[in-house]
């Protein structure tokens, strides 16, 4: 693997024209260094996924540039992008997006084959990575027989099989329970810190802050200053402390996304 630097400069994405135009991302700049974990947070509809799509060369910005070690991806022809995506990026999705008709090892090996590896070599590489991720006993399973955590580990193996320098993860822990979510976080941290890959994560999950080197807050399509966040104890949403409704109980201060959650909290049983 060759380390590389991903850089977005004044990136804007506009959908539609005229009065109906919607600006999903406006003038965002970002530089991701090798081995760095960058967490992008923000409310729903803030443009996180659009930004991630542009960083991964899946979507062309309306303005600005996305470059990888100086190569401007957003200016490359469509025909050159598949190779970039295959060899330089690894994608991890919230819904795992495994191919349901293929077995675990085939899901990983097919991406290696697309990158040019021959059948047996692709299978061996897929098997090695899957075994390393604890899926050695699940190689011939179809995805629908796997747990959520196992599916995400297969997706991680698939993202790593072509030895990319950058991992782009969209809500990688969203569909997982707490323990499995921590396991995935540990894996992502290892990918960055032990293997030297850059990891860009888009998530609502506050726990991922623990492994991130940088946390960026995207709102209305632009990065805002890092703001103090808290978790609504009723619904679990991330809320801005400065703007949120709050209440004190047993000497502790709590923040809520709405007055409804606050009322529910205050009318509920006292905390232990």
């Amino acid at each position, binding site marked *: 693997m060759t380390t590389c630097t991903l850089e977005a400069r004044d990136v804007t994405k506009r959908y539609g024209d005229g009065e109906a135009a919607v600006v999903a991302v406006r003038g965002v700049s970002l530089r991701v260094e090798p081995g760095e974990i960058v967490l992008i947070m923000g409310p729903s509809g803030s443009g996180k*996924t659009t930004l*991630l*799509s542009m960083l*991964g060369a*899946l*979507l062309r910005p309306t303005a600005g540039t996305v470059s990888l070690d100086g190569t401007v991806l957003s200016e490359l022809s469509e025909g050159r992008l*598949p*190779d*970039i*995506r*295959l*060899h330089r*990026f690894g*994608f991890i*999705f*919230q*819904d795992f*997006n495994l*191919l*349901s*008709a*293929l077995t675990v090892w*085939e899901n990983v*090996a*097919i*991406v290696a*084959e*697309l*990158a040019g590896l021959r*059948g047996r070599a692709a299978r061996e590489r897929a098997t090695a990575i899957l075994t390393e991720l604890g899926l050695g006993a699940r190689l011939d399973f179809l995805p629908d027989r796997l747990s959520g955590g196992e599916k995400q580990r297969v997706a991680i193996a*698939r993202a790593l099989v072509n030895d990319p320098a950058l991992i782009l993860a*969209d809500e990688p822990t969203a569909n997982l329970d707490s323990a499995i979510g921590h396991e995935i976080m540990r894996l992502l941290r290892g990918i960055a810190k032990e293997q030297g890959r850059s990891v860009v994560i888009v998530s609502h999950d506050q726990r991922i802050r623990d492994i991130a080197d940088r946390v960026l807050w995207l709102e209305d399509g632009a990065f805002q200053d890092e703001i103090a966040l808290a978790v609504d104890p009723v619904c679990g949403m991330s809320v801005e402390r400065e703007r949120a409704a709050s209440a004190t109980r047993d000497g502790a201060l709590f923040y809520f996304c709405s007055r409804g959650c606050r009322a529910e909290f205050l009318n509920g049983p006292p905390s232990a």
Partner: protein
Amino acid sequence: MAATWVMARRSLTANWLRLLASVGGVALALSLVLALDAIVAGVSSQLTSYIDRAGADVWVAQAGVRNLHMVASWLPASDTADVAGVKGVVAVTPILYVTDAISANDQRAIAYVIGLPGDATMGLPWEIAEGKAIPGPGEAVVGRDFARQAGVGIGGRVTILGRDLRIVGLSEGTGNLLNGIAFISANDFEAARGSAGLVSFVLVRTAPGTSPDAVASAIERTVPGVSALSRGAFAAEERRLVMQMAGDVIATMNGVGFVVGLAVVALTVYVATLARRREYGVLKALGARARFLYAVVLAQAVLSVLLGFATAVVFTSAVAAVVHAVGLPLALVIDVSSLLKVAAFGAVIAAIASILPIRQVAGIDPAVVFRRGAVL
């Protein structure tokens, strides 16, 4: 390449009902074409069975007559001796021939009626199941299948050319889908038709080592007012006539089979592609080139057609075996040219069926895979 076939195979087998419908539909469509070809080939083969097995190397007919089915041929009886005198001819048998209805009890059937001289060495029934081969005056040899259907046997009565005759022989293998063959004496034939002094064909056996075609040419040069063809050429003319008669039907059924097969494969591959659009989007996002996805779609169509083709061949062969076992007066002959034609049909079907889904695949936006719940 391996990935293409794995994806195609798994996509097809992921839904067994869809696979069954696809393969079954293709098999049905190709079977239509294959079975019709087999019937035509079988009928064609049966129609020439008398020509092939009468024992003649050369057939001599009235000038311009070049086949047996649905023709009238009349030659002066004296031509028989003239033909016998041609170099290379070792034996001749004049026969009388007409197509007419024969009946026994209430059973009626169309038959070639052959009038044989008492000393005939050619033109006889080639397999006798019961009785004798050469009928004398007042006698007839009919096909065993006809006799069974009419409920008559040796000693029974049959009406041929308006004459009531006694059955003295039952032949085997002389019936086909269109007609049977009945043999009577030349005397009865002449009496019934008033054809004294005439013959229909002169059957010729050539000397060993001589070319039947060369002898046929020599006969035409030597005997005026006749057409002479070797057995092979005479049978080929007969088959050509059959193909002319059945050509429109065959073309129509081929067209129907082609359209049905195309519709089934196209629909199946299209639905399979639609059902997997998200996965194709994922593959695009991961770096798969469009041509890989096109290849997967094409491979699915090819697999469907291959399975359908194999099923069609097995099915049609089974039908042919059953028809043979049941003893129907029909033979299904699956020949190589028909297999090649149906295989070519399949290849064209697979290629055309892939076009529509390929357009779908080309339009997939890989970025959509990040949009949860997005309907692709």
